[in-house]
């Protein structure tokens, strides 16, 4: 069963058509990679999933419910989390607090006036957050201020924040961009482990083919705003259309 279903989505900015008749299905429990050359519309598409952009036409269905016109926090509450290309974390807060916040959001919803309760006494939340930090190997950095983390750790923290919500669908925007090979491998391993353990559906935008082919169970190739191929990884490798899209770009 597909958890995310995109049908005939069009989006243009002024005269520029960023997305044209995009169709996409993400199956539950899989890792689905979206690849494509620069400017193919990958990030635009992702923005349409999380409520940052609203498509001009078409539909985006999540678990049978339309995401169109919903606010980002509503979409998240439905079970969609997103990791950004440049890590979006709470820079002024400690690592531990960063992870606690999504736990609160998961438990208490979009708004709750819990002004008299104490963070210290929220045992469930604290335990969940600590477990999450152990899972991502960051428990030793629990009390550090998030903005003082290394770039890799920031991204790992962001991932931990998303995962701690136990989302049904995790969107990852170039999770390994700018990482050293070792870090990249760690990330691949982490994602694989999570998928294995929690069966979270993931949609990944990625440039690094090593990452894509290590993780993805299905791949959509986006070029010039439209999905040109959607297939299993082994079929993508030698696909002529994909070659054309990438070579065309290289030729420019």
């Amino acid at each position: 069963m597909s958890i995310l279903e995109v049908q005939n989505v069009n989006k243009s900015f002024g005269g520029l058509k960023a997305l044209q008749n995009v169709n996409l299905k993400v199956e539950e429990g899989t890792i689905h990679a979206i690849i494509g050359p620069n400017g193919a519309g990958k990030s635009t598409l992702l923005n349409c999933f999380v409520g940052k952009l609203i498509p001009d036409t078409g539909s985006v269905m999540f678990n049978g419910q339309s995401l169109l016109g919903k606010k980002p926090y509503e979409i998240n509450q439905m079970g969609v989390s997103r990791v950004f290309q440049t890590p979006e974390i709470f820079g002024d807060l400690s690592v531990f607090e960063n992870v606690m916040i999504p736990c609160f959001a998961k438990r208490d919803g979009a708004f709750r006036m819990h002004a008299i309760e104490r963070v210290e006494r929220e045992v469930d939340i604290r335990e969940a957050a600590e477990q999450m930090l152990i899972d991502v190997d960051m428990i030793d950095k629990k009390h550090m201020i998030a903005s003082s983390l290394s770039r890799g750790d920031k991204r790992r923290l962001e991932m931990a924040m998303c995962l701690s919500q136990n989302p049904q669908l995790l969107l990852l925007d170039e999770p390994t961009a700018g990482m050293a090979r070792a870090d990249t491998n760690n990330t691949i391993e982490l994602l694989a482990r999570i998928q294995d353990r929690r069966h979270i559906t993931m949609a990944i935008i990625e440039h690094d083919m090593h990452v894509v082919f290590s993780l993805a169970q299905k791949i959509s190739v986006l070029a010039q705003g439209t999905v040109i191929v959607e297939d299993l990884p082994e079929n993508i490798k030698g696909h002529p259309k994909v070659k054309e899209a990438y070579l065309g770009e290289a030729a420019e």
Partner: protein
Amino acid sequence: MLGLNKKDTKFLLIVICLTLATPFLMQPFAEGTALAQFNGGYPDLMQRVAIFGIFAIGFNILFGLTGYLSFGHAAFLGVGSYSAVWMFKLLSMNIIPGIILAMIMSGLFALLIGYISLRRSGIYFSILTLAFAQMSYNLAYSVLTPITNGETGLQVRPTDVRLLDGANAPDYPNLFGWTMSTSYKWELGAHQFTFNVGFYVCAVIAIAAFYLSLRIFRSPFGLMLRAVKSNQQRMSYTGLNPKPYTLAAFVISGMYAGLAGGLLASMDPLAGAERMQWTVGGEVVVMTILGGAGTLLGPVLGAGAIKYLENIFSKINESVLHSWFSFLPDGLEDAVVWLFARFTGDGWHLTLGLLFMAVVIFLPGGLMEGGARIRAKFGRRGDIDETGAATKTPAE
């Protein structure tokens, strides 16, 4: 105790002790000495420090936690004062109904202004709040005179209705018969200490206000507010709606301002339109930053520093200076007096301006950072250091 952990309880106890001992702390010098000029332990100043402390604590919940800089909080102070005085006129000179209405009205007003202003962020938000406050001030000064008594300010009169008060009820603001202006004096050698009912009412309320703000700082709600300041985008992609959180903080801080306004009117039953002017709103901004925005105790220190300066420095005139420096030879005396007179008496604004600049330049975290540095210098990291969130580490 009181739903606080050990550190916070200790911190709160220290604050309580300091507050209750204010009549001693602000009156360190013996009467009749030259330094007695610097004594600030008289009722009006102590009340004002406590009241503006409340105002700043409330402002800090908005600005310190969410980072939203409002220039319009003076409007809530004014609304609080007007509501309280109207209660004195209509219902009773007992301050309880006045203070309750002050908080309700300012809360409603804050809800309205906050709902509109929070549609924008950053400087756009600041200007929106400023515009609302200036509109309130201008109207209160002129067109709304029937409600506000304009330039003169709303005052109580013997002819007022005062439905709940019997024939023997006090003519001045009181708490069940205890008039705010009653003072007791204790002379201890050359020292004189004044214990004023009004001040202790303010002090108890200020402690309660401080306690509430401590709880908010330590609550999940407080954590969410800090998240608003840190990264709103991440917040909404984490399934949290920043708007109601910010609006709640705005309304809470507006009610704190209203409470302060109600107390001001209770200590001195006159509500002037100037309370709504942007300079008053700016003053609370300055108090908060000066003391240390986002710290628990900083805003109170800032409020104290500014009110002390305003009331004590402006009174040091040239004849006072002459009496201090009369031991110097004539020519030198005049020169020294001239020099000091630039900064005191009618020059007290200059001292104020220089203080702002010095604090921001040398103590970026405000007075609290100064305190932390002093403690660090003596190689001791006290408990307050962390619980007071004086350092840059977030108090978890």
